[in-house]
Protein backbone atom coordinates (compact mmCIF):
# COMPACT_ATOMS: atom_id res chain seq x y z
CA UNK A 1 0.00 0.00 0.00
CA UNK A 2 2.80 2.40 0.90
CA UNK A 3 4.51 1.96 -2.42
CA UNK A 4 1.27 2.74 -4.23
CA UNK A 5 1.13 5.99 -2.26
CA UNK A 6 4.75 6.78 -3.10
CA UNK A 7 3.94 6.14 -6.75
CA UNK A 8 0.88 8.40 -6.45
CA UNK A 9 3.02 11.24 -5.12
CA UNK A 10 5.53 10.74 -7.93
CA UNK A 11 2.80 10.74 -10.58
CA UNK A 12 1.19 13.82 -9.01
CA UNK A 13 4.41 15.79 -9.30
CA UNK A 14 4.96 14.71 -12.91
CA UNK A 15 1.35 15.44 -13.87
CA UNK A 16 1.56 18.91 -12.32
CA UNK A 17 4.58 19.91 -14.40
CA UNK A 18 3.41 18.17 -17.57
CA UNK A 19 -0.07 19.74 -17.38
CA UNK A 20 1.37 23.24 -16.95
CA UNK A 21 3.71 22.66 -19.90
CA UNK A 22 0.87 21.44 -22.09
CA UNK A 23 -1.36 24.41 -21.17
CA UNK A 24 1.50 26.81 -21.82
CA UNK A 25 2.14 25.16 -25.20
CA UNK A 26 -1.55 25.46 -26.11
CA UNK A 27 -2.21 29.08 -25.11
CA UNK A 28 1.28 30.58 -25.32
CA UNK A 29 2.49 32.49 -28.36
CA UNK A 30 5.12 30.95 -30.61
CA UNK A 31 7.81 32.80 -32.48
CA UNK A 32 11.42 32.23 -33.33
CA UNK A 33 14.38 34.30 -34.32
CA UNK A 34 18.11 33.77 -34.15
CA UNK A 35 18.72 36.24 -31.33
CA UNK A 36 16.06 34.69 -29.14
CA UNK A 37 17.85 31.36 -29.26
CA UNK A 38 21.06 32.77 -27.85
CA UNK A 39 21.97 32.37 -24.20
CA UNK A 40 21.47 35.51 -22.13
CA UNK A 41 24.66 37.34 -21.38
CA UNK A 42 23.74 40.98 -20.78
CA UNK A 43 23.49 41.68 -24.49
CA UNK A 44 26.93 40.41 -25.48
CA UNK A 45 27.15 37.39 -27.80
CA UNK A 46 28.50 34.39 -25.87
CA UNK A 47 32.01 33.39 -26.84
CA UNK A 48 32.63 29.67 -27.05
CA UNK A 49 30.90 26.96 -25.08
CA UNK A 50 29.51 27.59 -21.62
CA UNK A 51 30.59 24.18 -20.40
CA UNK A 52 33.97 25.33 -19.22
CA UNK A 53 36.29 23.70 -16.69
CA UNK A 54 35.31 24.92 -13.21
CA UNK A 55 37.38 25.70 -10.15
CA UNK A 56 38.64 22.49 -8.53
CA UNK A 57 37.25 23.57 -5.16
CA UNK A 58 33.75 22.49 -6.09
CA UNK A 59 34.84 18.95 -6.93
CA UNK A 60 36.94 18.67 -3.78
CA UNK A 61 33.90 19.35 -1.63
CA UNK A 62 31.84 16.92 -3.68
CA UNK A 63 34.36 14.16 -2.94
CA UNK A 64 34.36 15.06 0.76
CA UNK A 65 30.57 14.96 0.73
CA UNK A 66 30.58 11.52 -0.85
CA UNK A 67 32.74 10.16 1.96
CA UNK A 68 30.85 11.71 4.84
CA UNK A 69 27.38 11.21 3.48
CA UNK A 70 27.81 7.46 3.15
CA UNK A 71 29.04 7.41 6.74
CA UNK A 72 26.06 9.42 8.00
CA UNK A 73 23.70 7.06 6.22
CA UNK A 74 25.17 4.25 8.35
CA UNK A 75 24.29 6.24 11.47
CA UNK A 76 20.52 6.08 10.81
CA UNK A 77 19.91 2.41 11.72
CA UNK A 78 22.11 2.85 14.77
CA UNK A 79 20.19 5.93 15.94
CA UNK A 80 16.94 3.96 16.12
CA UNK A 81 18.25 1.49 18.70
CA UNK A 82 20.23 3.83 20.98
CA UNK A 83 17.41 3.99 23.52
CA UNK A 84 17.30 0.20 23.82
CA UNK A 85 21.03 -0.39 24.12
CA UNK A 86 21.94 2.61 26.29
CA UNK A 87 25.65 2.95 27.01
CA UNK A 88 26.49 -0.05 24.80
CA UNK A 89 25.27 1.92 21.79
CA UNK A 90 27.71 4.71 22.52
CA UNK A 91 30.63 2.31 22.85
CA UNK A 92 29.78 0.42 19.70
CA UNK A 93 29.43 3.53 17.57
CA UNK A 94 32.38 5.26 19.28
CA UNK A 95 34.98 3.71 17.00
CA UNK A 96 32.96 4.51 13.91
CA UNK A 97 32.49 8.14 14.96
CA UNK A 98 36.18 8.34 15.79
CA UNK A 99 37.03 7.36 12.23
CA UNK A 100 34.53 9.94 10.97
CA UNK A 101 36.08 12.69 13.11
CA UNK A 102 39.59 11.61 12.11
CA UNK A 103 38.56 11.85 8.49
CA UNK A 104 37.29 15.38 9.01
CA UNK A 105 40.40 16.35 11.01
CA UNK A 106 42.66 14.91 8.32
CA UNK A 107 40.82 16.81 5.56
CA UNK A 108 41.02 19.97 7.65
CA UNK A 109 44.76 19.50 8.34
CA UNK A 110 45.49 18.85 4.67
CA UNK A 111 43.72 22.08 3.75
CA UNK A 112 40.90 20.42 1.86
CA UNK A 113 38.39 22.67 3.63
CA UNK A 114 40.06 25.86 2.38
CA UNK A 115 38.48 27.39 -0.68
CA UNK A 116 40.89 27.39 -3.59
Amino acid at each position, binding site marked *: *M*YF*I*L*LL*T*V*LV*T*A*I*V*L*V*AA*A*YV*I*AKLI*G*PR*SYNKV*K*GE*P*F*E*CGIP*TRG*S*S*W*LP*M*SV*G*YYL*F*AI*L*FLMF*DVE*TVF*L*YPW*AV*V*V*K*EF*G*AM*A*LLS*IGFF*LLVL*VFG*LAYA*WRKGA*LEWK
Partner: protein
Amino acid sequence: MFDFSIVTTWFDSLLRETLGLGDFLSILIECVLVGVFILAAYAMLAIVLIFMERKVCAYFQCRLGPMRVGPWGVFQVFADVLKMLQKEIFFVDKADKLLYLVAPFLVLIASVGTFSFMPWNKGAGILDFNVGIFLLTAISSIGVVGVFLAGWGSNNKYSVVSAMRGAVQMISYEMSLCLCLITAVVLTGTMQISGIVEAQSGPFGWLVFQGHIPAIIAFIVFLVAGNAEANRGPFDLPEAESELTAGYHTEYSGMGFGFFYLAEYLNMFVIAGVATTVFLGGWMPIHIGVAGVDSFMDCIPGIVWFLGKAFLLVWVLLWIRWSFPRLRIDQILKLEWKYLMPLSLINLVLMTVIVALGWYIK
Protein backbone atom coordinates in the same frame (compact mmCIF):
# COMPACT_ATOMS: atom_id res chain seq x y z
CA MET B 1 -7.49 14.77 19.78
CA PHE B 2 -9.47 14.19 16.60
CA ASP B 3 -8.05 11.22 14.74
CA PHE B 4 -8.21 11.78 10.99
CA SER B 5 -7.78 8.05 10.28
CA ILE B 6 -11.47 7.68 11.29
CA VAL B 7 -12.34 9.60 8.12
CA THR B 8 -9.99 7.62 5.89
CA THR B 9 -11.12 4.22 7.19
CA TRP B 10 -14.76 5.31 6.86
CA PHE B 11 -14.15 6.36 3.28
CA ASP B 12 -12.33 3.10 2.54
CA SER B 13 -15.22 1.02 3.91
CA LEU B 14 -17.70 3.24 2.05
CA LEU B 15 -16.01 2.42 -1.24
CA ARG B 16 -15.45 -1.28 -0.55
CA GLU B 17 -18.58 -2.32 1.33
CA THR B 18 -21.36 0.20 0.80
CA LEU B 19 -20.64 0.76 -2.88
CA GLY B 20 -19.20 -2.71 -3.35
CA LEU B 21 -16.25 -1.66 -5.49
CA GLY B 22 -13.36 -4.03 -6.08
CA ASP B 23 -9.86 -3.69 -4.65
CA PHE B 24 -8.38 -2.10 -7.73
CA LEU B 25 -11.11 0.49 -8.25
CA SER B 26 -11.28 1.62 -4.63
CA ILE B 27 -7.51 1.98 -4.39
CA LEU B 28 -7.52 3.89 -7.66
CA ILE B 29 -10.17 6.32 -6.40
CA GLU B 30 -8.29 6.79 -3.13
CA CYS B 31 -5.02 7.43 -4.94
CA VAL B 32 -6.64 10.00 -7.22
CA LEU B 33 -8.13 11.72 -4.18
CA VAL B 34 -4.74 11.75 -2.46
CA GLY B 35 -3.20 13.25 -5.59
CA VAL B 36 -5.87 15.93 -5.78
CA PHE B 37 -5.39 16.72 -2.11
CA ILE B 38 -1.63 17.06 -2.56
CA LEU B 39 -2.08 19.36 -5.55
CA ALA B 40 -4.67 21.49 -3.77
CA ALA B 41 -2.62 21.82 -0.59
CA TYR B 42 0.54 22.46 -2.59
CA ALA B 43 -1.01 25.19 -4.74
CA MET B 44 -2.81 26.84 -1.82
CA LEU B 45 0.31 26.91 0.35
CA ALA B 46 2.38 28.25 -2.54
CA ILE B 47 -0.05 31.12 -2.99
CA VAL B 48 -0.10 31.90 0.73
CA LEU B 49 3.69 31.68 1.03
CA ILE B 50 4.47 33.86 -1.99
CA PHE B 51 2.00 36.50 -0.81
CA MET B 52 3.39 36.27 2.71
CA GLU B 53 6.97 36.66 1.48
CA ARG B 54 6.10 39.76 -0.51
CA LYS B 55 4.19 41.41 2.30
CA VAL B 56 6.69 40.50 5.02
CA CYS B 57 9.64 41.63 2.94
CA ALA B 58 7.80 44.85 2.13
CA TYR B 59 7.14 45.58 5.79
CA PHE B 60 10.76 44.82 6.65
CA GLN B 61 11.77 47.46 4.11
CA CYS B 62 9.07 49.98 5.15
CA ARG B 63 7.08 49.46 1.94
CA LEU B 64 3.52 48.31 1.41
CA GLY B 65 4.16 45.50 -1.05
CA PRO B 66 1.60 44.56 -3.73
CA MET B 67 -1.54 46.70 -3.28
CA ARG B 68 -3.13 47.04 -6.73
CA VAL B 69 -4.64 43.65 -7.61
CA GLY B 70 -7.56 43.06 -5.24
CA PRO B 71 -7.81 44.34 -1.67
CA TRP B 72 -4.25 44.62 -0.21
CA GLY B 73 -3.05 42.91 -3.37
CA VAL B 74 -4.29 39.44 -2.40
CA PHE B 75 -4.92 38.50 -6.04
CA GLN B 76 -1.41 39.47 -7.14
CA VAL B 77 -0.17 35.87 -7.00
CA PHE B 78 -3.14 34.60 -9.06
CA ALA B 79 -2.41 37.28 -11.64
CA ASP B 80 1.24 36.23 -11.74
CA VAL B 81 0.36 32.57 -12.26
CA LEU B 82 -2.01 33.47 -15.09
CA LYS B 83 0.66 35.60 -16.69
CA MET B 84 3.29 32.88 -16.43
CA LEU B 85 0.96 30.26 -17.91
CA GLN B 86 0.54 32.36 -21.03
CA LYS B 87 4.26 32.76 -21.67
CA GLU B 88 5.95 30.83 -24.43
CA ILE B 89 8.26 27.98 -23.44
CA PHE B 90 11.33 28.18 -25.62
CA PHE B 91 14.77 26.65 -25.72
CA VAL B 92 18.20 28.14 -26.05
CA ASP B 93 19.59 26.92 -29.37
CA LYS B 94 22.69 25.27 -27.97
CA ALA B 95 21.03 24.01 -24.77
CA ASP B 96 20.97 20.34 -23.85
CA LYS B 97 17.25 19.97 -24.56
CA LEU B 98 16.66 16.79 -22.57
CA LEU B 99 18.34 18.01 -19.36
CA TYR B 100 16.71 21.40 -19.78
CA LEU B 101 13.26 19.82 -19.98
CA VAL B 102 13.79 17.21 -17.24
CA ALA B 103 15.13 19.59 -14.58
CA PRO B 104 11.79 21.15 -13.46
CA PHE B 105 10.32 17.65 -13.14
CA LEU B 106 13.12 16.57 -10.79
CA VAL B 107 12.84 19.72 -8.70
CA LEU B 108 9.08 19.29 -8.38
CA ILE B 109 9.38 15.56 -7.58
CA ALA B 110 11.73 16.41 -4.71
CA SER B 111 9.48 19.22 -3.53
CA VAL B 112 6.14 17.39 -3.76
CA GLY B 113 7.73 14.20 -2.43
CA THR B 114 9.03 15.80 0.74
CA PHE B 115 5.84 17.83 1.06
CA SER B 116 3.81 14.60 1.25
CA PHE B 117 5.57 13.57 4.44
CA MET B 118 4.02 16.39 6.46
CA PRO B 119 1.87 15.17 9.39
CA TRP B 120 -1.10 17.51 9.04
CA ASN B 121 -3.11 15.98 11.85
CA LYS B 122 -3.31 12.78 13.83
CA GLY B 123 -3.64 10.04 11.20
CA ALA B 124 -3.49 12.51 8.30
CA GLY B 125 0.06 11.98 7.06
CA ILE B 126 0.13 10.77 3.45
CA LEU B 127 3.50 9.03 3.33
CA ASP B 128 4.11 7.33 6.66
CA PHE B 129 6.88 4.77 6.13
CA ASN B 130 8.75 3.17 8.99
CA VAL B 131 11.91 4.66 7.45
CA GLY B 132 10.17 8.06 7.09
CA ILE B 133 12.90 10.54 8.00
CA PHE B 134 15.50 8.58 6.07
CA LEU B 135 13.36 8.45 2.95
CA LEU B 136 12.57 12.15 3.33
CA THR B 137 16.25 13.11 3.21
CA ALA B 138 16.73 10.73 0.29
CA ILE B 139 13.92 12.32 -1.72
CA SER B 140 14.99 15.85 -0.84
CA SER B 141 18.42 15.20 -2.33
CA ILE B 142 16.85 14.64 -5.77
CA GLY B 143 16.37 18.43 -5.78
CA VAL B 144 20.13 18.92 -6.05
CA VAL B 145 20.15 16.96 -9.29
CA GLY B 146 17.31 19.11 -10.63
CA VAL B 147 19.05 22.37 -9.83
CA PHE B 148 22.33 21.13 -11.26
CA LEU B 149 20.79 19.83 -14.49
CA ALA B 150 18.83 23.06 -14.96
CA GLY B 151 21.99 25.13 -14.74
CA TRP B 152 24.12 22.77 -16.78
CA GLY B 153 21.52 22.12 -19.45
CA SER B 154 20.88 25.80 -20.12
CA ASN B 155 24.31 26.31 -21.70
CA ASN B 156 24.57 29.74 -20.19
CA LYS B 157 27.70 30.84 -18.34
CA TYR B 158 25.76 32.33 -15.46
CA SER B 159 23.68 29.19 -15.13
CA VAL B 160 26.69 26.85 -15.13
CA VAL B 161 28.40 28.83 -12.37
CA SER B 162 25.14 28.85 -10.45
CA ALA B 163 24.69 25.11 -10.95
CA MET B 164 28.12 24.41 -9.48
CA ARG B 165 27.48 26.71 -6.54
CA GLY B 166 24.04 25.26 -5.93
CA ALA B 167 25.26 21.68 -6.05
CA VAL B 168 28.22 22.21 -3.72
CA GLN B 169 26.14 24.22 -1.27
CA MET B 170 23.19 21.85 -1.17
CA ILE B 171 25.25 18.68 -0.80
CA SER B 172 27.41 20.27 1.90
CA TYR B 173 24.48 21.39 4.02
CA GLU B 174 22.79 18.03 3.63
CA MET B 175 25.45 16.68 5.99
CA SER B 176 24.47 18.70 9.03
CA LEU B 177 20.81 18.38 8.08
CA CYS B 178 21.15 14.58 8.28
CA LEU B 179 23.18 14.73 11.48
CA CYS B 180 20.56 16.92 13.17
CA LEU B 181 17.79 14.54 12.16
CA ILE B 182 19.86 11.60 13.46
CA THR B 183 20.25 13.48 16.75
CA ALA B 184 16.47 13.69 16.96
CA VAL B 185 16.03 10.02 15.99
CA VAL B 186 18.38 9.00 18.82
CA LEU B 187 15.89 10.48 21.28
CA THR B 188 12.65 9.35 19.65
CA GLY B 189 13.89 5.85 18.80
CA THR B 190 11.92 5.69 15.56
CA MET B 191 12.18 7.09 12.05
CA GLN B 192 8.46 6.91 11.30
CA ILE B 193 6.96 10.41 11.10
CA SER B 194 3.83 9.52 13.10
CA GLY B 195 5.99 7.67 15.62
CA ILE B 196 8.21 10.72 16.06
CA VAL B 197 5.17 12.89 16.74
CA GLU B 198 3.72 10.30 19.17
CA ALA B 199 7.05 10.18 21.00
CA GLN B 200 6.61 13.88 21.83
CA SER B 201 3.40 13.55 23.83
CA GLY B 202 3.22 14.06 27.57
CA PRO B 203 4.06 17.13 29.67
CA PHE B 204 6.81 19.18 28.01
CA GLY B 205 7.17 16.40 25.49
CA TRP B 206 8.27 18.43 22.48
CA LEU B 207 11.76 17.41 21.53
CA VAL B 208 13.26 20.83 22.23
CA PHE B 209 12.00 20.44 25.83
CA GLN B 210 12.59 16.72 26.10
CA GLY B 211 16.16 16.79 24.85
CA HIS B 212 16.93 20.26 26.22
CA ILE B 213 20.49 21.44 25.31
CA PRO B 214 21.45 19.05 22.47
CA ALA B 215 17.95 19.20 20.99
CA ILE B 216 17.95 23.01 20.96
CA ILE B 217 21.39 23.05 19.32
CA ALA B 218 20.19 20.53 16.73
CA PHE B 219 17.06 22.59 16.12
CA ILE B 220 19.02 25.78 15.44
CA VAL B 221 21.59 24.01 13.25
CA PHE B 222 18.73 22.35 11.37
CA LEU B 223 17.11 25.70 10.64
CA VAL B 224 20.39 27.19 9.40
CA ALA B 225 21.24 24.16 7.27
CA GLY B 226 17.67 23.93 6.02
CA ASN B 227 17.75 27.53 4.96
CA ALA B 228 20.87 26.82 2.95
CA GLU B 229 19.35 23.62 1.55
CA ALA B 230 16.35 25.57 0.25
CA ASN B 231 18.69 28.14 -1.36
CA ARG B 232 17.19 30.98 0.62
CA GLY B 233 18.11 33.77 2.91
CA PRO B 234 21.76 34.69 3.23
CA PHE B 235 22.55 31.44 1.38
CA ASP B 236 20.89 32.29 -1.96
CA LEU B 237 24.19 32.10 -3.83
CA PRO B 238 22.91 29.93 -6.71
CA GLU B 239 20.51 32.69 -7.76
CA ALA B 240 22.48 35.70 -6.57
CA GLU B 241 20.65 38.17 -8.80
CA SER B 242 23.31 40.87 -8.66
CA GLU B 243 26.04 38.54 -9.96
CA LEU B 244 24.30 35.78 -11.91
CA THR B 245 21.08 37.46 -13.18
CA ALA B 246 18.81 34.61 -12.03
CA GLY B 247 21.29 31.77 -11.68
CA TYR B 248 20.23 28.30 -12.75
CA HIS B 249 16.83 29.44 -14.03
CA THR B 250 18.07 32.36 -16.14
CA GLU B 251 17.11 30.59 -19.37
CA TYR B 252 13.72 29.35 -18.20
CA SER B 253 10.61 31.15 -19.34
CA GLY B 254 7.00 30.97 -18.22
CA MET B 255 6.03 27.97 -16.15
CA GLY B 256 9.54 26.47 -16.35
CA PHE B 257 10.68 29.37 -14.21
CA GLY B 258 7.41 29.23 -12.29
CA PHE B 259 8.14 25.74 -11.01
CA PHE B 260 11.57 26.66 -9.69
CA TYR B 261 9.96 29.59 -7.95
CA LEU B 262 7.17 27.41 -6.57
CA ALA B 263 9.59 24.73 -5.40
CA GLU B 264 11.72 27.30 -3.60
CA TYR B 265 8.80 28.46 -1.48
CA LEU B 266 7.47 24.99 -0.83
CA ASN B 267 10.95 23.80 0.13
CA MET B 268 11.02 26.57 2.68
CA PHE B 269 7.70 25.33 4.04
CA VAL B 270 8.95 21.74 4.05
CA ILE B 271 12.02 22.76 6.05
CA ALA B 272 9.78 24.56 8.53
CA GLY B 273 7.38 21.60 8.55
CA VAL B 274 10.10 19.03 9.18
CA ALA B 275 11.60 21.20 11.93
CA THR B 276 8.10 21.43 13.42
CA THR B 277 7.53 17.69 13.17
CA VAL B 278 10.85 16.61 14.54
CA PHE B 279 11.61 19.27 17.12
CA LEU B 280 8.35 21.04 17.96
CA GLY B 281 6.01 18.08 18.15
CA GLY B 282 4.21 18.29 14.79
CA TRP B 283 0.46 18.40 15.44
CA MET B 284 1.01 17.61 19.13
CA PRO B 285 -0.38 20.35 21.40
CA ILE B 286 1.79 21.66 24.20
CA HIS B 287 1.12 19.87 27.50
CA ILE B 288 2.34 21.17 30.83
CA GLY B 289 1.01 18.45 33.12
CA VAL B 290 -1.92 20.46 34.53
CA ALA B 291 -5.15 18.65 33.63
CA GLY B 292 -7.28 21.74 32.86
CA VAL B 293 -4.71 23.41 30.63
CA ASP B 294 -3.89 20.16 28.85
CA SER B 295 -7.49 19.38 27.97
CA PHE B 296 -7.97 22.95 26.76
CA MET B 297 -4.94 22.58 24.50
CA ASP B 298 -6.38 19.29 23.21
CA CYS B 299 -9.51 21.17 22.05
CA ILE B 300 -7.46 23.05 19.44
CA PRO B 301 -7.32 20.83 16.32
CA GLY B 302 -3.99 19.27 15.37
CA ILE B 303 -3.84 20.96 11.98
CA VAL B 304 -4.01 24.37 13.65
CA TRP B 305 -1.09 23.44 15.87
CA PHE B 306 0.91 22.13 12.93
CA LEU B 307 0.26 25.06 10.61
CA GLY B 308 0.70 27.55 13.44
CA LYS B 309 4.11 26.22 14.37
CA ALA B 310 5.18 25.75 10.77
CA PHE B 311 4.20 29.28 9.79
CA LEU B 312 5.95 30.69 12.83
CA LEU B 313 9.14 29.01 11.59
CA VAL B 314 8.47 30.21 8.03
CA TRP B 315 8.24 33.71 9.43
CA VAL B 316 11.57 33.25 11.21
CA LEU B 317 13.12 32.10 7.91
CA LEU B 318 11.72 35.18 6.15
CA TRP B 319 13.06 37.36 8.94
CA ILE B 320 16.53 35.85 8.50
CA ARG B 321 16.34 36.24 4.74
CA TRP B 322 15.54 39.93 4.81
CA SER B 323 17.97 40.79 7.62
CA PHE B 324 21.29 39.34 6.50
CA PRO B 325 23.45 40.10 3.47
CA ARG B 326 24.45 37.29 1.13
CA LEU B 327 27.53 35.24 2.04
CA ARG B 328 30.41 34.39 -0.29
CA ILE B 329 30.95 30.82 -1.49
CA ASP B 330 34.05 30.28 0.66
CA GLN B 331 32.24 31.67 3.71
CA ILE B 332 29.32 29.35 3.11
CA LEU B 333 31.54 26.27 2.85
CA LYS B 334 33.59 27.36 5.85
CA LEU B 335 30.44 27.78 7.93
CA GLU B 336 29.29 24.28 7.06
CA TRP B 337 32.48 22.25 7.16
CA LYS B 338 34.35 24.05 9.95
CA TYR B 339 31.50 25.04 12.26
CA LEU B 340 28.14 23.35 11.70
CA MET B 341 29.39 19.87 10.83
CA PRO B 342 31.80 19.44 13.81
CA LEU B 343 29.18 21.05 16.03
CA SER B 344 26.48 18.62 14.96
CA LEU B 345 28.86 15.65 15.33
CA ILE B 346 29.70 16.69 18.91
CA ASN B 347 26.03 17.37 19.50
CA LEU B 348 25.16 13.86 18.34
CA VAL B 349 27.60 12.37 20.87
CA LEU B 350 26.20 14.65 23.58
CA MET B 351 22.67 13.53 22.79
CA THR B 352 23.71 9.87 22.86
CA VAL B 353 25.32 10.35 26.28
CA ILE B 354 22.19 12.06 27.58
CA VAL B 355 19.94 9.30 26.25
CA ALA B 356 22.25 6.57 27.56
CA LEU B 357 22.29 8.14 31.02
CA GLY B 358 18.54 8.87 30.91
CA TRP B 359 18.97 12.60 31.54
CA TYR B 360 16.15 13.63 29.22
CA ILE B 361 12.67 14.60 30.40
CA LYS B 362 10.55 11.45 30.26
